[in-house]
C-alpha cells in the first residue's frame, strides 16, 4: 500500500514539472498581454506585471481589422466543413454499401490524398487557382479542401458498423439510396461526424501557408494571416500588443476546447483508430 502511494506521488512528481513546462508558453502569452512595454525588456522587473494593463487589447483591435479576419475565418472554415460533409457522406456511403466496378482502386485513389497534403502540392495548386481566377477570394481558401480522403475513410468505417437490416427495412418502406443515407445512416453516425467536424475545424481554422499564398488584401484575410502580418511589423518592438492579438486569435478554439473538452479529446483520440 505504502509503495503504491509512493509510486502514485512519484508519477505526479515527474508529470507536474513537465506539465508546467508545457503550459508555460500559454501563460507567457497571457502575462505579457497585460504588461507594459518597459516591463517586457527589463529583466529585473520579474515574471508578473506590476499592474495589469488592459490597454493592449483595444490597441491590438485598433491596429488591424480583427473583426473582418474573424468573419473570414468563420466563413472559410464553415464552408469547408459544409462542403466536406456533403462530399464525404455521399462517397463514404457508396464505398460502404454499394457494389460497383473498380471499388478498391477508386478507394485507394481517395486515400492517395492523405499522402499529398497541401504543403506538398501548393505550387501547382496555386497556379490552378490563379487560372480559375480565384486568387484573393474566399473560395480560393476553400476549394482544395472540399474533397477529403481522410473524412471519407472515417465515415466509411462508421457506415460499415450500421446493421444492414436497418437499410433493408428502409428499402422496404420505399426509401431510395439517398433517402436511406439521409434518414438512416447519417443520424446513426453522428458521433463520427462530430469527431470529423472538430478535426476539420481545428485544422482549417489554423491553416497558415495556403491562405498566405492566395490572399493579398485585408478584406479576405483570415485570423492567422492577420496575426502573421502584425507579427512582422511588431515583433521585437511591441510584444505586449502582439501578445494581446495572439490571445484574441487563439481564444476562440481554446475556449471551445475548455468547454467541450471531452468531445475534443475523444475526437482526436479515436482519429487514429481503424
Amino acid at each position, binding site marked *: 500500500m505504502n509503495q503504491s502511494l509512493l509510486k502514485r506521488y512519484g508519477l505526479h512528481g515527474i508529470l507536474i514539472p513537465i506539465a508546467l513546462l508545457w503550459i508555460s508558453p500559454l501563460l507567457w502569452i497571457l502575462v505579457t498581454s497585460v504588461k507594459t512595454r518597459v516591463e517586457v525588456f527589463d529583466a529585473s522587473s520579474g515574471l508578473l506585471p506590476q499592474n495589469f494593463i488592459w490597454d493592449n487589447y483595444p490597441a491590438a483591435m485598433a491596429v488591424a481589422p480583427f473583426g473582418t479576419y474573424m468573419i473570414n475565418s468563420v466563413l472559410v472554415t464553415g464552408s469547408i466543413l459544409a462542403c466536406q460533409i456533403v462530399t464525404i457522406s455521399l462517397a463514404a456511403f457508396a464505398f460502404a454499401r454499394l457494389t460497383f466496378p473498380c471499388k478498391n482502386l477508386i478507394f485507394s485513389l481517395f486515400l492517395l490524398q492523405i499522402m*499529398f497534403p497541401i504543403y506538398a502540392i501548393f505550387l501547382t495548386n496555386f497556379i490552378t487557382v490563379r487560372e480559375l481566377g480565384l486568387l484573393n477570394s474566399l473560395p480560393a481558401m476553400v*476549394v482544395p479542401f472540399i474533397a477529403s480522403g481522410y473524412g471519407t475513410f472515417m465515415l466509411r468505417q462508421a457506415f460499415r458498423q450500421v446493421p444492414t437490416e436497418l437499410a433493408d427495412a428502409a428499402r422496404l418502406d420505399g426509401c431510395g439510396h439517398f433517402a436511406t443515407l439521409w434518414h438512416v445512416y447519417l443520424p446513426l453516425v453522428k458521433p463520427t461526424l462530430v469527431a470529423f467536424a472538430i478535426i476539420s475545424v481545428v485544422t482549417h481554422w489554423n491553416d497558415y501557408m495556403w491562405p498566405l499564398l492566395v490572399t493579398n488584401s485585408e478584406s479576405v484575410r483570415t485570423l492567422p494571416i492577420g496575426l502573421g502580418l502584425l507579427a512582422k511589423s511588431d515583433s521585437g518592438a511591441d510584444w505586449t500588443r502582439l501578445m494581446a492579438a495572439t490571445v484574441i486569435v487563439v481564444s476562440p478554439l481554446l475556449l471551445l476546447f475548455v468547454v467541450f473538452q471531452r468531445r475534443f479529446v475523444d475526437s482526436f483520440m479515436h482519429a487514429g483508430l481503424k
Partner: protein
Amino acid sequence: MSMRINFFKPKHDTMVAVFMLLPSLVFLAAFTYWPIIRSIYFSFHDVMLGSDKIFFLGWENYERVLQDSLFWKSFRNTAFYTLITIPVAIICALLLAVALDTKIRAVALYRSIFFYPVMIPSVAAGMVWVFLYAPGYGPINGMMEFLGLPKLEWLYSSDWALPAIMVMSVWKYSGYFMLILLAALQLVPRDLYEAARLDGVSAWHQLIHITIPLISPTLYFVIIIGILHSYQIFDYVYVMTQGGPADATNVLTLYIYQNAFQYQDIGFASTVANMLLLFIGGLIAVIASTIGRHVHYLGK
C-alpha cells in the same frame, strides 16, 4: 418519370455510385491528381510565373537541382528535422501516454495541458517561441542564466536555429500523438500487466515486451502521420527565421516557395517539389517495409 423511379432502384448501384463519388472525384482530380501530374510536366520545362511561354528542357532542371548546393542544404535540413523531430515527439508522446494510462488523479487536466498546443495556430506558436527564444530579454535565456548555463543566440545562431525550431515542434505535436496512443493503450488487456508484475517483470520490460508490440499498429500509424505533419515546418520557418541565418533553417518547402515566388522559376520549383515528394514517399516506403512488417495485429 419512369427513369427516375428506375434510377433509385438497387440494381442501378453503379449509376448511383458514380453520382455519389462524382463530387469528391471532381475536386480530388482538380486539386490533388492534376497538381501532381502538372508538377511532373513542369519539371521538364522552362516555365516562368506569369508567362504563357513554356519550353521543353528535358532533364536540365534535374541536373541543375543535383548540382545546386542550396538545394542540398535545404534537403539536409528537411531530413534532419524530420528524422529527429518525429521520433523524439513520438517517444515523448508514448511516455506521456503510458504515464496517463494509469489511475492517477487529474488525468483529464494533464491530458488537456499536453494537448492544447495542437489548438494553437502554427503562426501564433512560431511567434510566441520567437519571443521565448529572444537572446536579450527572452525567458529561455533568463532560465539558462539562472541555471548557470551559457546564454545562446538561438534563432540568430546558425547552429541552434534549427534545433530550436525542433524543440518547439516537439512541444506542438507530442500531445496529438499522445492522445492517439492513449486510445490504443486503453485497449490493452489489464491482466497482461498483472501477470507480468506477478512474474517480476520490470516496468521497462513491460513497456518493451507487452505495451509496444500490442499497440504497434497505432504506433506505425502515428509515425506515418508524423512524417506527413513534418511538411508543416514551412509555417514555423517562414514566421520564425525566414530560412536564416545564412540558410541554416532553409527547408525544401521554403526553397520551393522562394524559387516560385521570388525567382518566378516554376519549372525549377516544381523539380524541387518532386524531389521533396520522392524523399517523403521514399521515407514512408522504407518505414512500411521495415517497421510495417513487424506490426502485430490483435485478433486475426
